[in-house]
C-alpha cells in the first residue's frame, strides 16, 4: 500500500462517515460558503463559550475532498479558541502553497490533503470549510484576527 493510497483511504473514510455533520440550533456563529467553480455549498455552525469553540457542525453539498476537509476540520477545531482555529487554517493555506512537504505541527492532521496539492483545481475544495471558518471569524467583530 502506497502512502498516497493510505491518505486517500483516510479521506474517503471521512467523506463516507463525516464527523460532526449537521447544523447546531442557535449557533454562536454560522456561515454558508460556495465554490463557484463547481457549485458546491457548505454550511458551518459554531457554538462558542467565550473564545472557545465548544462545538461545531457542517452540512456539505460537495465532493469527497470537500466533505473530508469539513469532517477533519471539525475534529481539529473543537475545544480550540477561534483564534487558534483561524491560525491553523492559515498555516494549512501556506502549506498548500509551499513546494516542500514540511508542515507545522498544528497542520499535521491535514497531511492527506497535502498529497493532493498538485491538483490545483481541488485546492478550493480542500479549503472551503476553512473559508467558512474565516467567514465566521469576520462576523465575530470583537477580536482582531488579522
Amino acid at each position, binding site marked *: 500500500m502506497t502512502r498516497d493510497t493510505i491518505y*486517500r483511504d483516510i479521506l*474517503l473514510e471521512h*467523506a463516507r462517515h463525516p464527523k460532526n455533520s449537521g447544523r447546531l440550533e442557535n449557533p454562536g456563529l454560522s456561515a454558508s460558503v460556495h465554490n463557484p*467553480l*463547481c*457549485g*458546491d*455549498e457548505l454550511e458551518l455552525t459554531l457554538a462558542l463559550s467565550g473564545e472557545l469553540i465548544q462545538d461545531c457542525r457542517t452540512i456539505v*453539498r*460537495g*465532493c*469527497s*475532498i*470537500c466533505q473530508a476537509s469539513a469532517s477533519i476540520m471539525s475534529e481539529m477545531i473543537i475545544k480550540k479558541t477561534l483564534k487558534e482555529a483561524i491560525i491553523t487554517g492559515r498555516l494549512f493555506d501556506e502549506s498548500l502553497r509551499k513546494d516542500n512537504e514540511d508542515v507545522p505541527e498544528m497542520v499535521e492532521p491535514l497531511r492527506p490533503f497535502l498529497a493532493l496539492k498538485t*491538483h490545483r483545481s*481541488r485546492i478550493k*475544495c480542500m479549503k472551503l470549510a476553512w473559508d467558512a471558518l474565516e467567514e465566521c471569524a469576520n462576523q465575530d467583530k470583537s477580536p482582531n484576527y488579522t
Partner: protein
Amino acid sequence: MPNHTLISQCRKDFPILKREVNGYPLAYLDNAATTQKPKSVIDAITNFYENHNSNVSRGVYTLAEEATEIYESGRDAVANFIGAEDSGTIIFTSGTTESIKLVSSAWGQKNLKKGDRIILTEMEHHSNIVPWQLAAKSYGIELVYWPVTTEGRLDLALLEELLTNSVKLLAFTMVSNVLGCINPVEQITEIAHSHGVPVLVDSAQAVSRMSIKVSEWDCDFLAFSGHKVYGPTGIGVLYAKKERLEEMLPFQGGGGMIRHVEKQSSTWAVPPQKFEAGTPPVAQVPGLKAALEYLKQYGIKQIERHDNELTEHALNQLTEFPDLELYGPSEIQNRTGVVSFNLQNVHSHDVAQVLDESGIALRAGHHCTQVLHERLGVPATVRMSFGIYNDPSEIDRMFSALDQARAIFLH
C-alpha cells in the same frame, strides 16, 4: 464503418493527441469546453507571424497590405462557412461572450427600454444570461425564461405563449452545452419573426458540429468562438443581419472604428469596422480560417455522421447502467455529442478526477449553466463531449474507468 476509417485519419493531424496522461494515451472528451487544434491551424498562425505580421487596415506598405488581405479573406471565409451572403455582416470579436455582450450593449442600448422583455431559455450558458441581466439593470427590461421540458428540449408551443407584445428579442442556444439537444433554429426564428421579434442564436456549440445557414434561416444575430471550432483562442464572431447592423450604436471606442474624431465627439466608420475597435485579433484570423477549411476538407455531413455514431455509442452504454443518470434527451434525433450524466452518490468532481487517472479528460461541474442545473435539480454533472478525432474506444475506456470510480467511492 467507412466513416470511422476516414475520421480516424484525422487523429494524426492533431499534435496533442500523441500525449500521454498519467501513463495512458490522452482521451480528450472535453470538446464542449474547447477543441484541440490541427497542425494546419497552428501553422497558419506561425506563418502569419513569420511572414506577414503587421497591423491591418492602416498601412500602405506591402506587409500591411498582405495582413489586411489575409484579415479580410478570413472574414470572407467565415461568411461563406455560415452561409452569410455578405462579408460585411461578419464582425470579429474576442469570443462568443463578447459577441453577445456586443449585441446586448450596441443593439440593446438603442432598442431596449423600460418595460420591454427578452426571452431566454433555461438551458442558456451564463454568457447568454449575465449580459442580459446587466442590460436588465441598465435599461429596466425584464427577462423571461422559456422552460426546458423533462426530456431536455424546448417546447415550440410554449414559445407562442411567451411572445407577447413587449418582447423585443429572443436569445437562445442552438445546441445546449449540457443537454446536447439541437434546437430548430429555422423554425424558432420563423415563429419569433411572425411576432416581429428578432432572434440571437448562440451557436458556440453548433458551428463545429453541423451546417449553419444564417441567410437561409434569416436569423438576426449569431455568435460563436474560434476556440470551439478547432481554431485559436482570442477570437470570436458575431454575425448580424444588415438591418440589425444599422440599428446598432458603437460598442467599444478606439482605432479603426471611427470616421472622424474631434475633441468632444466623433463620427463612425461603416459596419463591420464600426464594431471592431482597436487592433483586432489579426493573427488569430488566419488560424480561424484554417480551422474552417479543415472542417470543410472532411465535410460537415461526414462530421455530423461521426458525431452521431459516437453519441449513439455513448447513449447505448449509458442507459445500460442503472446507477448512471442521463441529463438531456436519450433519443438520437436532433441530438449531438454532448452527453452529461451523474454516477449515483458520487460527486461529479470525484468522478472526473478518477477518470483523469486513466488519461480521460472530461469536465465536472455546472458548465456555466447554473440556471439549467437548478432546473435539473443537481448542482453539478459529469460531461463528455466529442470532437472529430474521438473514437468509440475512448468512450469504452470512459465507461471502464467509471468502474474504478464505483470501486473507490461506493465499495
